């Protein structure tokens, strides 16, 4: 498939973060064009493009916009720039190098959805990117792209950059809304969905950075033209962050539907010489892991879903055979245990239990039966919480237990043998189990 760049198109051009260079490249022409169209036509164009949300869930963007009620009321648009999914760094590159593309996308989407107040919620760690965005927003405001009745239309829009303060859960849309309202970032019960009752109880459209950054290109080339890229149900291009044991980690813009092998080996260089891929995450650490046998699966939403995983935020993490599955599982479980907001019991306890069970394996106290318990804990997290943070741990850990059971069993056996060689005097009697720590005798 031909190499097509839309998001990363000449992104290293010097000064692209300034309005002058962006405009010279045809920037804000799409906004002008969109403002001559009716909001319904703009929404229809985005629907025709078939673009699906680039943040993780892959929901069709056009339909999401159409869910917002019509009429005169306070409606909000929030751009989710709280990119925290382990392995994902595409939005960072977009915001740092081409901030005006995002701003233009936000403004077009706000016209389509009829929102007058828009926010970009950027994670607090992205200080440099936030500074660049802030400068770009000021430039756009001075140039009349943001404000009262922009470019002679009757669209009035404000744009506020909001910096977060470090919490993975704020990437979950309702957690993000609570955080933006100045609260702890706890997810909300759904329904009502944000499109009906979101920020400040008003209808709210929430989209990922990459999704919104694609909107100007869709308006410029026309939705039907955009839909010709990629596959029929996963249209367009996607920026994929490839990291881990590859020789050229970085962001690659691909047409959806290319074989995963092409992405990992041809573009990112594959693992170091002499090493082989053991497992890989196709869409951030929340996606069920894949093995080296799955490398020929096309990289698009539906093919990956059919294979039992997901492309999520588009973050491929490659792990070669110099690492054990257990060490990967431990990193994943610890991350979610740390980031669980603590609101729902299955997630709060399940993530912690999983960490403890992995610690037990490492300590040589586990038996293969513990793997069954671990798998059952994961099953009981999925679908039982307000948000998918717990599921995000349960899916990859569940997949690891399922796909790498023999390796994990060998790991258990090896750890037991190591432990038996240890000094018997050091052994803590199992009887002093902590009754608060769950059903397993963990110390």
């Amino acid at each position, binding site marked *: 498939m031909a190499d097509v760049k839309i998001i990363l198109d000449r992104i290293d051009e010097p000064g692209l973060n300034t309005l002058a260079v962006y405009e010279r490249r045809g920037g804000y022409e799409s906004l002008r064009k969109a403002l001559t169209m009716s909001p319904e036509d703009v929404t229809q164009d985005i629907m025709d493009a078939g673009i699906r949300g680039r943040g993780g869930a892959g929901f069709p963007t056009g339909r999401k916009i159409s869910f917002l009620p019509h009429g005169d009321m306070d409606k909000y648009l929030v751009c989710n720039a709280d990119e925290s999914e382990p*392995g994902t*760094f595409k939005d960072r590159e977009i915001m740092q190098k081409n901030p005006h593309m995002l701003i233009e996308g936000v403004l077009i989407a706000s016209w389509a959805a009829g929102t007058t107040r828009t926010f970009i919620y950027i994670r607090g760690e992205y200080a440099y990117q936030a500074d660049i965005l802030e400068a770009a927003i000021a430039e756009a405001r001075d140039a009349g792209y943001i404000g009262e009745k922009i470019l002679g239309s009757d669209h009035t829009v404000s744009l506020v950059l909001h910096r977060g303060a470090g919490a993975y859960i704020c990437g979950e849309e309702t957690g993000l809304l609570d955080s933006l309202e100045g609260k702890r970032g706890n997810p909300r019960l759904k329904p009502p969905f944000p499109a009906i009752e979101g920020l400040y109880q008003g209808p709210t459209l929430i989209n990922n950075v990459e999704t919104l950054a694609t909107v100007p290109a869709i308006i410029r080339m026309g939705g039907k033209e955009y839909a010709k890229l990629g596959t029929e149900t996963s249209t367009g291009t996607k920026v994929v962050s490839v990291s881990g044991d590859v020789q050229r980690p970085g962001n690659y813009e691909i047409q959806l539907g290319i074989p995963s092998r092409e992405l990992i080996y041809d573009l990112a260089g594959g693992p170091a010489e002499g090493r082989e891929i053991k497992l890989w995450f196709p869409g951030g650490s929340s996606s069920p892991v894949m093995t080296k046998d799955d490398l020929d699966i096309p990289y698009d939403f539906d093919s990956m879903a059919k294979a039992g995983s997901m492309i999520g935020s588009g973050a491929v993490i490659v792990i070669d055979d110099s690492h054990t599955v257990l060490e990967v599982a431990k990193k994943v479980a610890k991350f979610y245990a740390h980031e669980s907001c603590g609101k729902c019991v299955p997630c709060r306890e399940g993530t912690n239990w999983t960490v403890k069970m992995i610690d037990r394996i490492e300590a040589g106290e586990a038996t293969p039966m513990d793997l069954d318990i671990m798998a059952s804990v994961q099953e009981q997290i999925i679908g039982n919480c307000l948000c998918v943070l717990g599921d995000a741990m349960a899916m990859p850990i569940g997949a690891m237990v399922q796909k790498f059971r023999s390796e994990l069993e060998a790991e258990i056996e090896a750890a037991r043998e190591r432990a038996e060689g*240890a000094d018997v005097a*050091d052994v803590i009697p199992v009887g002093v189990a902590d009754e608060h720590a769950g059903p397993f005798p963990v110390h």
Partner: protein
Amino acid sequence: VSATNQGGRGGRVQVPRFGHGSRVPGWDTAVDLTKDPATVPDPATTPVPPQLREQIVQAMAKYPDRRSAAIPALHAAQDEHGWCSPEAIEQVAAVMRLTPAYLTSVATFYDMFKTEPKGRHDVFVCTNISCSLLGADEFFEEMLKAAEGHPDVNVASFECLGACDIAPMASVNGVYVGPLDADDAPRIVEDLEAGRTVLDHKQLRYRRSTDPGVLAEEASYFAPDPATSEKADTAGLGPEGDNVDRPGPAAPIETPTDEASNPDES
């Protein structure tokens, strides 16, 4: 606090515990229940530095609901006081007309707010998957060692900072640097102590895109105007008037694996 990492068969890990078996600090701290809960501080008796007040008022003006400014206000107070001290929280509460308890609940939720005094310089080492695969845990140990005896330097392990392309990496006072090796740890401390730019040649801001297509005009969907097809020779943004001859991202980014890796080979 009782915590031990050794003992037990094969180094079994004991969970650190506070009083009453709790894993959360402060749960066993005695609370004076006869006292009334703290209310919104009286602005007349709570002096607030004028520049801090100014920042908080400006932040509140940006949102339909003033409470939305809680995080920006706490960021400003932390910059002012070095951490979210009870005094800092009190000042924010006085300006925002909120209770200190509300702001404390917010400050304790987010990783970037310090609820106890820490060093002035933050070194957040990412120890999530991609970084740890490439040696972040070892680097974190080195960093802790390098920062020993430097109370100004606050070293913490952090969850994914969103820069796995330069793994293993760290955020030093908000500046992303990587890929790091053991030698960089003492250099970071030296640079911080000397007030220099930290690891200038390893800063993310100079890194070019790795996708070969971004330089190829034939890959660009929108045919570039000849007048605009200026070739990139720097990535990202250099500081203004920056004439430093830096190895920068033009030099190949090396992946610090055990095996020799050749980035030109696919």
